């Protein structure tokens, strides 16, 4: 203990004189050790055979398997479908909230925010009761079309997953859009309308250019999140809706094929990081000035909702 004494700062309250950059090192090392290193080990595990020697056997086995191709295709299909859906639905909701004021619009906006605070699997759980084989929609179909009328199995189909993801991720589009709309001068809309422009024309020529950065940010964020989404697909539990994250889970934990899971994980990380790069780069460029290193993450919408609950 005494050996440590000289290392202490000499005067009470004064920090030892170290360059400002050195203070970055402890958190940086912690993050590299607990985030960076595990990702490196995933890559390492993917190129190892059972004896621990270097081998690309897992890579060729996984990349050549129909299971991987199907999961990749399914993941892309669900991500793109959900993103397009969330963009369309989110734009409509945001335009109404911002430009068609009605009593209670504040409550509606708060309600949409609340979804950000929920765990994603809640949506699938609710869908079981709403659209399942003994659900509300099925009962309505029976009531209208007679006892013989059968609902197609939406719940366990890719379409059901897309609908669930649209439901869950639409708020991620609404939030940045409302932020862009808040910058818009209301008078511009009124001047355009008083000069005879119809609502569609006002939307196209006045609102759309203003909304573009928000749409791009929200859209690429949702695309990234839907590529990575796990809870909704896992809870759906359908045999023919296997996405890459679910494949990583079944390979790694259910069938204990860690090298196989590592190959899928590496492929997914490459895909996600590419998209993340596009998102950050594109968003920074759209905002132009380059001063802001840390573009206002729409994910902080989550932060705002932390008051209600979360992200």
């Amino acid at each position, binding site marked *: 203990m005494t050996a440590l004494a000289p290392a202490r700062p000499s005067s009470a*309250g004064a*920090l030892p004189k170290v360059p400002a950059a050195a203070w*970055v090192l*402890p*958190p*940086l090392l912690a*993050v*590299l050790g*607990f*985030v960076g*290193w*595990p*990702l490196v*080990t*995933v890559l390492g595990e993917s190129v190892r055979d059972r004896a621990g020697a270097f081998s690309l056997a897992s890579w060729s086995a996984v990349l050549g398997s129909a299971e991987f191709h199907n999961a990749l295709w399914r993941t892309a299909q669900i991500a793109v479908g959900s993103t397009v859906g969330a963009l369309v*639905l989110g734009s*409509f909701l945001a335009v*109404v909230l911002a*430009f*068609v*004021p009605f009593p209670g619009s504040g409550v*509606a906006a708060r*309600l949409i925010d609340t979804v950000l605070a*929920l*765990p*994603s*699997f809640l949506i699938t*759980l609710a869908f079981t*009761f*709403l659209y399942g084989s003994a659900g*509300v929609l099925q*009962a309505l179909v029976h009531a209208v079309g007679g006892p013989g009328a059968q609902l197609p199995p939406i719940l366990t189909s890719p379409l059901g997953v897309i609908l669930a993801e649209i*439901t869950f991720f*639409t708020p991620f589009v609404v939030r940045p859009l409302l932020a862009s709309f808040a910058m818009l001068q209301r008078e511009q*809309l009124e001047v355009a*309308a008083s000069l005879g422009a119809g*609502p569609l024309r*006002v939307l196209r020529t006045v609102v759309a250019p203003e909304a573009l950065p928000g749409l791009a940010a929200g859209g690429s964020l949702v695309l990234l999140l839907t590529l990575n*989404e*796990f*809870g909704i697909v896992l*809870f759906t*539990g359908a045999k023919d809706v296997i996405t890459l994250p679910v494949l*990583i889970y079944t390979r*790694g934990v259910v069938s204990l094929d*860690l090298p196989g899971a590592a190959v899928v*994980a590496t492929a*997914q990380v490459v895909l*996600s990081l590419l998209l993340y790069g596009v998102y950050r780069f594109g968003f920074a460029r759209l905002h132009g000035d380059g001063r802001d*290193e*840390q573009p206002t*993450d729409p*994910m*902080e919408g*989550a*932060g705002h909702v932390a008051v*209600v*609950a*979360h*992200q």
Partner: protein
Amino acid sequence: MLLWSRTSRAVVLAVFAVLVAVVVVAPLGTVLLAAVAGRWTGALPAGLTGAHLGEALGPEGLASLLVSVQTALLAGIASVVIGSWAALSAASAPGPMRRLVLGVCHLPIAVPSVVVGLGLLIAFNRPPLLLGGTRWIVILAHAVLVLAFTVSTVSAGLDRLDPAYELAARSLGASEARVLLRVRLPLLLPSLAAAAGLAVALSMGELGATIMVYPPSWRTLPVTIFTLSDRGDAFLASASTVVLLAVTALLLFALSRIRSRAALR
């Protein structure tokens, strides 16, 4: 102000109401109703019962809930400490260093939580650090996943901080440590509380990484809910979800009290 005719307004607002009802109200309302429904085979649930909620708070459910709360609090504290340290030190570091720190902290947002879990599972199931099979690997996974959010929240708070206070403190001869402890951190307290709230909320609902790494002795509530849903017990799963949301809301309420008290100062 976009629509001037009464009919078009009414039509658009009606569509809006239907969409919000289907997309937002229906899912949340369904889970709340299912939690207290005896059975649900028709269009409407029937037989109001507290049995599911009672079972969700039974010994097994309560154990999971406690695991979730402890995990959220420990991971929240760890991520707020590391995250604020990273945000504070990055703010005064040279440009490339700052981008590196913030970039690495944001990495877990960009990769799926399942991959984060797989990485921790592989990296910490071998020496030098053996965490596999213990509660610490779950807590570590949660801390890593919420770090990005605590870093952004604290960074955003730092950007809004008025530099006049610390400049005044320094000009009066306060040391760096005193400026940090007596000026910057107290001013940042609302952001720190917000970051903690966000961390707790995210951690309470985390599933992807947890399901990869959890040992049977440390099963969080979302994993339990998945097990229930997987074996077809959707009513109990809904009741447990309601319990999860209620406890999360309670924790956040407590944190927001700290936050508003900090903002008053």
